[in-house]
């Protein structure tokens, strides 16, 4: 059984990619190491969102709020309490998941856009809290210079830490999506009413999905703190959430790795195009439109399409026969 898994091409691919990523700090400049780390953080965030958007069909419009909560929790525990930094880092995702539970409990009663808008409102309340509670959060200046444990200081150790954590999270997400929970989540996406009729408690299921996804968002938030040592209210602002949402759609929201790719594209566009023109958002817009027209399921969606096509072909030969 285990041996079989080890031999599957997708496993080999993953292992090869991981190996290359492990070697990056030895072969690439520090900047690229940093940018890769940024991509991982964003990618994890986008993939956690995609758990709900692509697989759960939920209009999770303010996912950034949970990312911010994770980051702020870590930042505040580290700077405002005497607790060890590690505790702060671990508390981040838990706080995010808890926030997810509370916000989700309100939201799951609603559908589609209503769900999304209620979430934006609740998320904005959190954002306002971060923005207004000057004595705790420093308002819109944010908290900077958050000290990290020695093990994580320096960009290369931070890179490895982020790489490892992200890999573990992705593995977990993969398992979750392949599990009955994941299958049911997709069923809920397709037809919530029918799900009820087969005995699935749709709301509770979505809520669990939200808690899981927000947990991973919290992890991403903590990783951001590890990487940059800063937290600021922008992280909780709805515009950022919209951007993550776009990453999912861009990369291919019915695929597993799509959002990661979407994140990579967004980060690359803004870093590399951003250094040539201040109108990189215009370019991003044009690229997005091109993608919408020519790769309707997102970039990773191509695979999905070819797969479908092959299947269809098999089917149509059946009909002929």
């Amino acid at each position, binding site marked *: 059984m285990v041996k079989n898994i080890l031999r599957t091409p997708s496993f080999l691919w993953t292992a090869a990619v991981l190996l290359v990523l492990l070697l990056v700090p030895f072969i690439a400049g520090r900047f690229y190491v940093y940018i890769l780390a940024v991509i991982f953080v964003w990618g994890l965030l986008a993939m956690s969102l995609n758990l709900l958007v692509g697989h759960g069909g939920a209009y999770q419009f303010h996912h950034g709020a949970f990312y911010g909560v994770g980051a702020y929790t870590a930042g505040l525990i580290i700077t405002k309490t005497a607790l060890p930094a590690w505790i702060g880092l671990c508390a981040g995702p838990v706080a995010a998941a808890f926030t997810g539970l509370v916000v989700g409990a309100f939201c799951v009663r609603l559908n589609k856009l209503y769900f999304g808008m209620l979430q934006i409102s609740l998320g904005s309340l959190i954002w306002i809290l971060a923005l207004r509670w000057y004595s705790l959060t420093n308002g819109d200046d944010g908290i900077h210079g958050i000290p990290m444990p020695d093990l994580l200081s320096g960009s290369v150790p931070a890179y490895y830490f982020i790489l490892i954590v992200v890999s573990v999270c992705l593995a977990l997400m993969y398992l979750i999506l392949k599990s009955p929970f994941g299958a049911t989540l997709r069923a809920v996406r397709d037809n919530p009413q029918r799900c009820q009729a087969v005995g699935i408690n749709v709301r509770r299921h979505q809520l669990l999905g939200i808690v899981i996804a927000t947990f991973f968002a919290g992890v991403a938030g903590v990783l951001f703190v590890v990487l940059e040592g800063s937290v600021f209210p922008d992280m909780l602002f709805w515009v950022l959430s919209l951007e993550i949402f776009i990453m999912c759609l861009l990369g291919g929201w019915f695929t597993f790795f799509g959002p990661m790719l979407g994140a990579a594209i967004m980060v690359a566009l803004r870093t590399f195009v951003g250094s040539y023109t201040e109108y990189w958002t215009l370019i991003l817009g044009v690229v997005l439109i091109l993608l919408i027209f020519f790769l309707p399921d997102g970039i990773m969606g191509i695979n999905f399409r070819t797969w*479908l*096509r092959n299947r*269809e*072909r098999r089917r*149509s030969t059946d*009909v*002929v026969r």
Partner: protein
Amino acid sequence: MLEVQGIHTYYGLSHILFNVSLKVQRGQVVCLLGRNGAGKTTTLKSIMGLVPPQRGRVRLNGEDVNGVEPYRLARKGIGYVPDDRRIFADLTVGENLEIAARPVPGSEGWTKERVYELFPPLKPMDSRRGGLLSGGEQKLLAIARALMTNPQLLLLDEPTEGLAPIMVKIFEERIRRLKELGLTVLLAEQNLKFTLGLSDYGYIIDNGRIRCEGPVAELVDNEEVRRICGI
């Protein structure tokens, strides 16, 4: 009136219809029979331009209508009743009918009143939202809506599905009357009793191919037809 010549239709890459040809003369009721998944709906959709055929030709009154958009076909006089009803759920029953209205200048066409006369159960529901109707009522509404466009050719996809026996009876009688008024009908059906009583000519479709054709009376007796249609 309608002539379909060797059409091939695909959904994406899956090939559904293979060289389907059929002919409907003016004033005829022609039926298309076949079991589930045979391609009846697809044939009607191909004619209506909803799933344009990739090869072959569709001619309406001698005019080539390949690749013509559905709304133009509707204006040329084809009315379509889909098998899954597709009522405009947000609109009231009355509004569903009103937006379909396409009066023919000169002649006395269908109006809401005349349609209600044809299908009395709809009348009291004039201001109820379409989406709330019962399954059968929606079916009636779908047929009524198609009539409102004053079609010369009516494509009916399983019109009797979900209709109570008495409704089927009434409906059968009404179609007969319409036929006398000069309406042409292409009917895809599973309900044999209803179909055979009504139609003049029939085609049997299986696996996307036309297998047999002929006057209905002959078809019923054909052993192969009975097998294909699963009677």
